[in-house]
């Protein structure tokens, strides 16, 4: 798993790209890193999942925690560029009804600024 902050917009929305696998073996690490960078995303956070190959339920739980944190700060957590194989995970678990899923970074950022 690799995580990189690729952009922080002028309005304070942070874009983070996640690569590789997030499963129960590294979900805690995933949570720590995301928590550490989340403070900088003052107006919301976009997770770009284009190069994510696998996401387990433990990782979804981390995203849920982050969604609640963002909501408390008045921001939103969105994901974008979800590969087809992972889109199914979001749909089956119902997480797409909790976390907005967008096709591209641009679309996600546009939604954040609304």
């Amino acid at each position, binding site marked *: 798993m690799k995580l990189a902050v690729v952009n922080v917009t002028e309005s304070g929305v942070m874009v983070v790209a996640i690569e590789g696998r997030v*499963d*129960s*073996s590294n979900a805690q690490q995933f949570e720590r890193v995301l928590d550490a960078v989340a403070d900088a995303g003052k107006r919301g956070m976009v997770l770009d999942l284009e190069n994510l*190959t*696998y996401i*387990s*339920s*433990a990782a*979804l*739980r981390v995203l*849920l*925690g982050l969604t*609640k944190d963002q909501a408390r700060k008045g921001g939103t957590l969105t994901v974008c560029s979800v590969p087809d194989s992972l889109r199914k995970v979001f*749909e*089956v*678990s*119902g*997480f797409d*009804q*909790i976390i907005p899923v967008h096709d591209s970074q641009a679309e996600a950022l546009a939604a954040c600024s609304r």
Partner: protein
Amino acid sequence: MVVKPPYKILVVDDEPDLEPLMLQRMRRNIRRGQYTFVFARNGVQALDRLHAEDDIDMVVSDINMPEMDGLTLLQQIPKVDPNIRSIIVSAYGDMENIRTAMNRGAFDFVTKPIDFRDLRVTIDRTLQHLMEWREALASRDQLVALQNELSVASKMQQSILPTHFPESAHYQIFANMEPARSVGGDFFDVVSLENERIGMTVADVSDKGVPAALFMMSTRTLIKGAAIGSGGPGDVLREVNNLLFEDNETEMFVTVLYAEYNPETGEFVYASGGHDPPLLVKSDGSSTNLPLTGGIALGLLSDLEYRQNSVFLEPGDTIVLYTDGVSEAMDSTEEQFGLERLRAAVAADPGSDAEAANDLVFDAVSDFVGDNPASDDITCLTFRRTGGG
């Protein structure tokens, strides 16, 4: 347990003048809260104090004393507490006694007449060692506790799984769960309902460890309770979701597929809470994924409605409920087992009973992953309407 200063030091010497001298020379360290001292006049008194006071960190002992000498005391200390460290005070140049003391477990020694600056350095070095030792012990205890926790969680998980399945002229049912090496959160359950109806659950809790196992147990109990006296799978999930959500501070959630079969009508009704839909394998070997009912995993949001869907089974039709440990099992090239292989495994021997068909799934997964260790629990439940109607 890592103890913080002041460290309690037991000084053992038959010379009565040593007590005021020690307190006077060490007064700065005592005032700064680094050391506290207690005293004994011989080995017997020293052992009495060690038994009476379990917070003594260190012993500084003379060798030649009445009743019990310092070398004998050294042998007795570990029997009271193996984590106490001792410094021996010997006559200058008395290598024979010093050697004996070291062999009997003394950590260090100082010589007479006592150079208090040297004693202070020796005490500090001994305390440093003691702190490191205790930290090492504490992390070992944590590791043991962690292993205990995982094994407790694993036992809890196993204990809620049914080992006997209802027998009926109308259907066969069998299920199994193979735990991953690090505990996962899968479980299944089967519950007999009114009018020979039967309820079945396959579920996956989002975490591992004891809290997840407790969450799993309450989920299973709530489903059982809701199933008896409910209006069907959609109602069961709605009710259980609200109950799980109430006190859920942990952001834990559970994906559930709950289904009921009515042998009188042949109707199979199911609802999904964030779980993969059932697989239907017809008696002719053709198969379909039943449509998703669109519910969210349980425990995340309250007051949700859960839709249900139904199909009518014909004799010989098979329903397979599974967790993602089956569909996402990976071989060494990270390819997933997938639904096609699952369909093929279930349809491979249409004449078999439900137990044999269920075993075929586990065999196929095991053949597929090879030596690649399972990263998630594997759960599969096979339900078959038999020819008897």
